């Protein structure tokens, strides 16, 4: 079949053709970018935290009437309260391990600082998040130790967050070790934290540990984490609890009761008091999941509207050319020829549409990159989009085209 008569016919329907081309182009541009956004969000959601997320709880609370000062008497009193809580939690049935744990990956509360090789903060500086906790922290979180050892009980310090002494020993995540010591000999080396005078010795390296923040400013150091052998003393204290498999709900319930029984002068609101890690995860990525869902809904509506538009306009053309189709049939065209005619016509229009659409998609992506945090659109997304648009065009044109192919040749003999 030659394309020439199709082009000649299209020239008589300029407005309709332009509209379909425009619609396909805009749809392709938006859908490509929207699907790319969805892809990025899903990738973010699926980032591993490096911890064993099942059967893990975070318990956070604030004491009431506890000393709020920084003097050593206050600090000792706060530490005593904290150790009592840890003992209470350890004694609960269904609890496997408990650690003092100031924060958890993707939980939100973050303290961060810079690690350097010299105290004057010259040379390589690696930004990292600090996880304060006791000797049980690494094993409670289920983080994989790949070199060195855990903290031992004697190494655990306790002070407020505004303490000024550096910890003599630390455990770092592998990305931190690799950046500071590219030769891979980080274990046993000393580093300096935030320009503090005392060095800290790296006694262990963990494979992977995401930082507590999911905000974009944390992206450059998303897996740079340091374990600090410090029970943080403060009016607020929080604990990580690893439960026996399947006992999460019981322990959540029992822990609240037991802590209040041991010391009622505390605040533990429902919103952040006792949370399972799956709740923390859901909260952390709620906005990302929401954006992905929204973009998905918009894409579905867009594709539906565009497909329906093609069906509508092609049906109109079929109706308009009823008689011509009859003439062609009478002159010997087969039904398949008529079907192909409309299919090729659609392919031509959609072809122009996707070429324009690819340009628009790239343009839109570039614009989003300059104005918002957006990455370059991969070619794969564009190609998939192009194929999908062509397929949708063919799918949408099929019904009207088949109706056209059913026009009997006898129509030619009737008056219009």
């Amino acid at each position, binding site marked *: 079949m030659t394309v020439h008569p199709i082009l000649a016919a299209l020239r008589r329907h300029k407005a309709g053709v332009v509209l379909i081309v425009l619609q396909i182009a*805009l749809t392709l541009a938006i859908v490509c970018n929207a699907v790319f956004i969805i892809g990025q969000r899903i990738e973010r959601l699926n980032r591993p935290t490096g911890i064993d997320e099942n059967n893990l709880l975070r318990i956070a609370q604030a004491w009431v009437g506890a000393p709020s000062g*920084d003097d050593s008497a206050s600090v000792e009193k706060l530490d005593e309260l904290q150790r009592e809580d840890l003992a209470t939690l350890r004694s609960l049935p269904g609890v496997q391990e408990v650690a003092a744990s100031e924060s958890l990956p993707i939980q939100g509360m973050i303290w961060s600082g810079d690690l350097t090789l010299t105290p004057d903060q010259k040379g390589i500086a690696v930004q990292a998040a600090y996880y304060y906790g006791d000797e049980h922290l690494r094993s409670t979180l289920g983080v994989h130790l790949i070199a060195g050892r855990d903290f031992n009980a004697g190494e655990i310090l306790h002070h407020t967050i505004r303490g000024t002494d550096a910890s003599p020993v630390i455990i770092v995540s592998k990305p931190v070790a690799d950046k500071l010591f590219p030769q891979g000999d980080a274990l046993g080396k000393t580093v300096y934290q935030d320009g503090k005078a005392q060095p800290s010795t790296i006694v262990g390296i963990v494979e992977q540990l995401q930082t507590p923040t999911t905000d974009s400013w944390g992206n450059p150091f998303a897996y740079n984490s340091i374990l600090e052998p410090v029970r943080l003393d403060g009016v607020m204290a929080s604990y990580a609890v690893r439960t026996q498999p399947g006992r999460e709900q019981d322990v959540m319930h029992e822990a609240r009761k037991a802590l209040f029984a041991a010391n009622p002068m505390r605040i533990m609101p429902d919103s952040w008091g006792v949370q399972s890690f799956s709740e923390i995860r859901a909260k952390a990525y709620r906005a990302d999941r929401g*954006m992905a869902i929204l973009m998905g809904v918009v894409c579905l509506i867009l594709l539906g509207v565009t497909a329906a538009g093609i069906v509508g306009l092609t049906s109109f053309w079929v109706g308009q050319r009823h008689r011509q189709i009859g003439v062609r049939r009478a002159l010997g065209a087969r039904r398949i020829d008529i079907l192909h005619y409309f299919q090729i016509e659609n392919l031509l229009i959609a072809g122009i549409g996707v070429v324009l659409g690819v340009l628009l998609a790239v343009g839109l992506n570039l614009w989003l990159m300059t104005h918002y945090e957006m990455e370059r659109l991969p070619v794969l997304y564009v190609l998939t989009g192009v194929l999908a648009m062509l397929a949708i065009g063919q799918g949408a044109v099929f019904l009207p085209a088949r109706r056209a192919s059913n026009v009997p040749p006898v129509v030619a003999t009737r008056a219009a």
Partner: protein
Amino acid sequence: MFGYYLELALRSLKRSPGLTVLMVLAIGFGVAASMTTYAVFRGVSGDPIPWKSSKLFVPRIDMWGPNDSGHVGDPPDALDYTDAMALMRDHRAPLQSAIYLIAPSVIPAGAGRSPIPVDGYAVYGEFFPMLDVPFLYGSGWSADDDAHQAAVAVIGDKLNQQVFGGGNSVGKTIDIEGKDYRVIGVLADWNPQPIFYDVMDTGGYGGGDGPGVFVPLQRAVAVNMANVGANECRVQPVESGFVGLQHSNCVWIAYMAELDSAAAVQSYRQYLDDYAREQRAAGRFAWAPNNRLFDVPAYLEQEHVVPSDTKVSLLVALGLLIVCLVNTVGLLLAKFLRRSGEIGVRRALGASRRAIYAQFLTEAGMIGAGGGVLGLLLTGVGVLSVGLVLPARLAHLARIDPSLLMLTVLVAVVATMLAGLYPTFRASRVQPAWQLKTN
């Protein structure tokens, strides 16, 4: 005549129900998607204090210097204690306040009542008149109270309900962190969003009931009621504790000043630069003055308070609306031109082009109205379900109100009539003679 056109339009729409439904659906979905995302955008990007936002200013002082790698050229996001106190002392604006976040617990009187955790702020007395904070009872405290570190507190309405069971509690005593404070004012409902007076700690949005308690900043410092908000340090404090934080150049204090005229703004800028020069002369800064003074809208923009997701969603939804309109243009074109015969007859019988315009735009408007009604329903569903996909602190800002509903219908009808213009133009160009001949 309009009634007649309505009847014609209705008849024509009934003749091809599939096409009609398709157009109404397209307009309805397009408008609803745009309006839902617009409702969210409007909610999060609103001016929190529209009558005054251009008179409220946030100063920034570069106390870290140009070598700070994190802030390439821009001063840090808040003030340190030294500079905030200096600005308060110099008192160059009619109203100003240093602000920091506290989270004390309040212990209700009476045995067996459990303590209440409250979020609040340590501020100066000028905070309340400056931000036009509404009071149910009483008022804020005086400059004298600030100077004497008076044990007074302004409490929110909710805390008033919890502790005193509501009513005028001015003059009553409230136990905050184990110390007695005299209630000097009770706030009416006040929780402006974005939280323009404390972006650093809140990111701009917070659900709940707003701050529950305010105490004089100097009093809070004196009783060691520490900052619970964010702090950022270029150099770690040498001393430990809250006192160490005060003596460091870590930034943790928000600051706002009211400046009523361009001249006042100019002289405040001058003052900030003079202050920085003074500090340089004193050896504290080793660089030329590098200060900023943002009014509230500029400040919210600078801090990227409106999440970019919200803007991108709105843009994508507007794109969807445009596609729906292009779609409608195509379908209307098909629909109108299919009736060339009818148009020919009407024209031959003496109908003017203007009459054809009126008839077909009426039909387009009717589809728009149908799309608008569907759009209303879907917008309602959309806004009510943003809570499923957005964090609560943002979702609760998206509201359905009469202006949103009116806008939804207006956008649907106007957009559809615009989409109907070209098809109507084509319809009006139909040659009556030619139509009559071929038929």
